[in-house]
């Protein structure tokens, strides 16, 4: 069931974003068909990625540029990077076994998953403290004082959406941490633990989807004024 929900929601989101992106492109450049623009999105994405990973140009700067790390204060960049790296690893090590391996997550991968979970928890808690003001639902006046520029450049509706996605990711992250912690404590019965595992899985799914959507809004230029 989890596998089906994950696949449907994941691909549903991807197609929605592609569709959305194509419509945006169409709106921006009249005369270009939606289909061709939609098709051009994926090559663009791969193009962006390939530029980073090209042997001569593989550098942290370019990766950071792609991920728009520069827009964060220097001290925060490493925290963001560790959050992204740990999240990517957790997604890969968590979802693949959960969906495609009957036994689920086990062995050395489980140990690594637990280890990266700790990094994720620490990074997330620092990020939420540092970025809470930026993504809080306050007036634009407050946000304009902030050093980051990514929010004020966005259209208001997307800015709100981005904030919602940010907090969704944070809340999902909180649930991930709490459900992982709770399973290690001797307070919950077997049935409660099974429920906690389900909470952990679905929280992971929500965090993944919100992260993708958040990244889409943040990384694509189409939303900017």
């Amino acid at each position, binding site marked *: 069931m989890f596998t089906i929900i994950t696949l449907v929601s994941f691909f549903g989101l991807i197609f929605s974003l592609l569709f959305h992106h194509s419509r945006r492109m169409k709106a921006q450049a009249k005369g270009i068909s939606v289909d061709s623009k939609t098709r051009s999105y994926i090559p663009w994405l791969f193009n962006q990625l390939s530029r980073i990973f090209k042997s001569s140009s593989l550098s942290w700067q370019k990766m950071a540029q792609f991920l728009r790390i520069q827009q964060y204060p220097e001290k925060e960049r490493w925290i963001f990077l560790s959050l992204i790296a740990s999240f990517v690893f957790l997604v890969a090590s968590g979802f693949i076994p959960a969906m495609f391996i009957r036994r689920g997550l*086990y*062995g*050395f991968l489980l*140990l690594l998953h*637990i280890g990266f*979970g*700790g990094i994720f*928890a*620490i990074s*997330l*808690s620092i990020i*939420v*403290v540092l970025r*809470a003001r930026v993504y*809080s*639902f*306050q007036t634009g006046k407050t946000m304009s004082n902030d050093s980051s520029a990514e929010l004020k450049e966005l259209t208001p509706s997307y800015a709100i959406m981005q904030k919602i996605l940010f*907090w969704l990711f*944070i*809340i999902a*992250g*909180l649930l991930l*941490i*709490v459900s*992982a*912690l709770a*399973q*290690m*404590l*001797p*307070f*919950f*019965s*077997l*049935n409660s*633990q*099974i429920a906690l*595992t389900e909470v952990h899985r679905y929280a992971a799914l929500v965090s993944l989807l919100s992260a993708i959507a958040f990244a889409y809004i943040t990384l694509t230029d189409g939303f900017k004024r």
Partner: protein
Amino acid sequence: MKRIKTIFLIIICLGILNSLAGQTDQTPQKWDGNRTTPVHLIPLKDEFNQTIVPSEPYPSPYSTRYTCAPCHDYDLIQKGLHFNAVSSIQDGRPGEPWVWIDLKTGTILPLSYRKWKGMWNPQELGISSWDFSLMFGRHMNGGGIAEPKDTEQSKESRWNVSGKIEINCMGCHNASRIQDHSEWAKQVLRQNFRWAATASSGLGEVGGMASRLSGTWDIYDGPNPDDKEWAVAPFVRYHPDLFDSKHRVFFDIAYKPDDSLCLNCHSVSPVEMKKFNADNDVHRAAGMKCVDCHRNDISHAMIRGYEGEAEEIKNQDIYGFTCKGCHLGKDTSGGENLSSGRLGAPYPKHSGIPAIHFDKLSCTVCHSGPLPGKDFTRVRTSRANRLGIYGIAQWYTESPAIIEPAFIRDESGKITPHRLIWPAFWGKLEGEKVSPLKPSDVQAIAGDIFEAEQHVARILAIISLYTEIDGTPVFVSAGNVYELNQDGGLDVTPYSGLKISSEILWAVKKNGEITSLIPYFDPDAEAPEAEIEARIQKILEALALLPEAPGKPVLINKKMMYRVSGGYLEAVEWPGKPTESPQLFWLYDNQIHPLATEFEIRTIVATVGHEQTLTEEQVELVLKSLAQAESQKNSLGKSDYLYVSGGRMFRIDEKGKLKATEHPAAEPVAWPLGHQVRPAQQSLGKKGCRECHKAGSSFFFSPVKGIGPLLTQKVEERSSHSFLRLDKPYQKLFGLSFSVRPVYKAVLFVSAIVIGSVVLLVFFLLLGRLSGLIETRR
């Protein structure tokens, strides 16, 4: 023509009616709903279905087949778990094997008629139903293999003398304390098969021994008028006060057998445990009986109670008698509000135990058997170690060495605690196929190689019997004193007195003091005293009586040789090497040979007083003898002979040396354990994850060493994780991770508090903004 048709029709109708009547007989009686047990005041029937009159001069023993049969379907009962090992189609989860033990040849062979891994089928080894019944009937309850059809009896069997061992109904269902398992075992070992049930139930007194009777004796022959001392035919004298005037007997029947009757054959106790310190299984302590879970109906298809049994035998009704079925009920989705299983058995919450444990471990891992420790617990079981046969003689054996709990991943993929033994046997290797040899066959070829201890014991016995020495004759070697024991073997004690001359081998022990069997005297100076002379003569005469005496016994003292000739002690000059002190020898081929050979002394010193009964030297010699015997028998024979012990297979290599290798036939044999169940407070993991998950965990890494009759360093050594089929480095690392778990938990906890606080703050700010409270304040 019409009349013929009518007669024909009548015949057909009668036939149909007859067959219907027959079918009615086969239908088990339906329970009327009454929960009482009927009074069993019934006449006793013998094996010829004749009513037994106890006052008759030579009454027959009672037969359960005919005494119980009018009401209970004997043939149906015979298909029950306790009787169907040979005929069963579904063998189910492995159970305890019968262990064929022959210590002299170092044979410890697990046998079973059921097709269980590592256990040998007796039929394939040429063990007849007669041999099997004689070996293991002591702990069998009759029927099945012990009650073969006339057509299935082997030639060497003596069923006509002993009778068959019918199902011993009272062995389980007797509510009277007079039911005597020891009596049962003794009667079976005397070959009084058909009398065993009568004797053990206390209905009568049984005398005589079928084992001493000629093979032509038959129960029709009655008592033996010519021999009232030795070959006395078995007989029974019923207790007349147990019978009423109609020759009926009251059987005090327990519908649910008492636990003590189950435990006659199913006891398991740690070797080191003292009886007063032994606790009961938690279920028994709570007042339950074995048969409360291990139930059966008249079919006697007893519930074994393991997971998956219900699916195997396609009867979901028995699911409720498994651990899960009883404690969780059928619906495992709920929580404590569930009614759980039978009689409201406590519903376990298993708080804090990750769900993976319930997928991978059986309930018994945490709840049954001894807790895993640094070493495995060695136990004795009734059937393997011959427990529960009481008498002056000690019946139980230390072999086989059974250890528990060995956590092994079973066929279903679940980890289950097992009992484990290491097989030991002589065999033949043809290709990859190993065929065990019968101990009697090996012994016949090995000759004296296995007889070292017995040979010295017999010398001591014969000196003790025929010389009237004041004290106990002993054999002294390597600082140890070897003394004859009641079983015809030797007991060893370290010698703590003054230093004995190294030449003294044969001595006398009196009041803890060891003196030479023949006191020192100088043959050059004077003739020995009359007392010494008499002792020498008696000892030499006694030794000459030894059946396996290889020559004439002589005493050599310096240059003089003393021998018995024509009933007189004769002293002649000894041309050979003189001795320092009086020494006993065998004289043959004009040469002297010691009473005990160097090989025998080496073997005795190495094995007596130890659990191991064989040396590598003996194994090498026997393997060579086996090979030689085959080459003499068949010049083309190229069988490779082997001995298995301690998890290794021993063979003779190209250079003629003993080599040890691994082989599947040397693998340990294990079977899951169900009891004894500990209370939840004493379950494994109750004290936390680190009971199992730590770098040096006993659960994962306890060392297991092969145990066998061979005294050798070449034994199989394993870590427990190999039975679990788990990766050692990972389990070590995983165990280590629990050392930092408290820190990890703290990190997660602090992170959760920080994130939660910020989320809460933002939520309230949003709430304030949406409600307009914040704007109002500005």
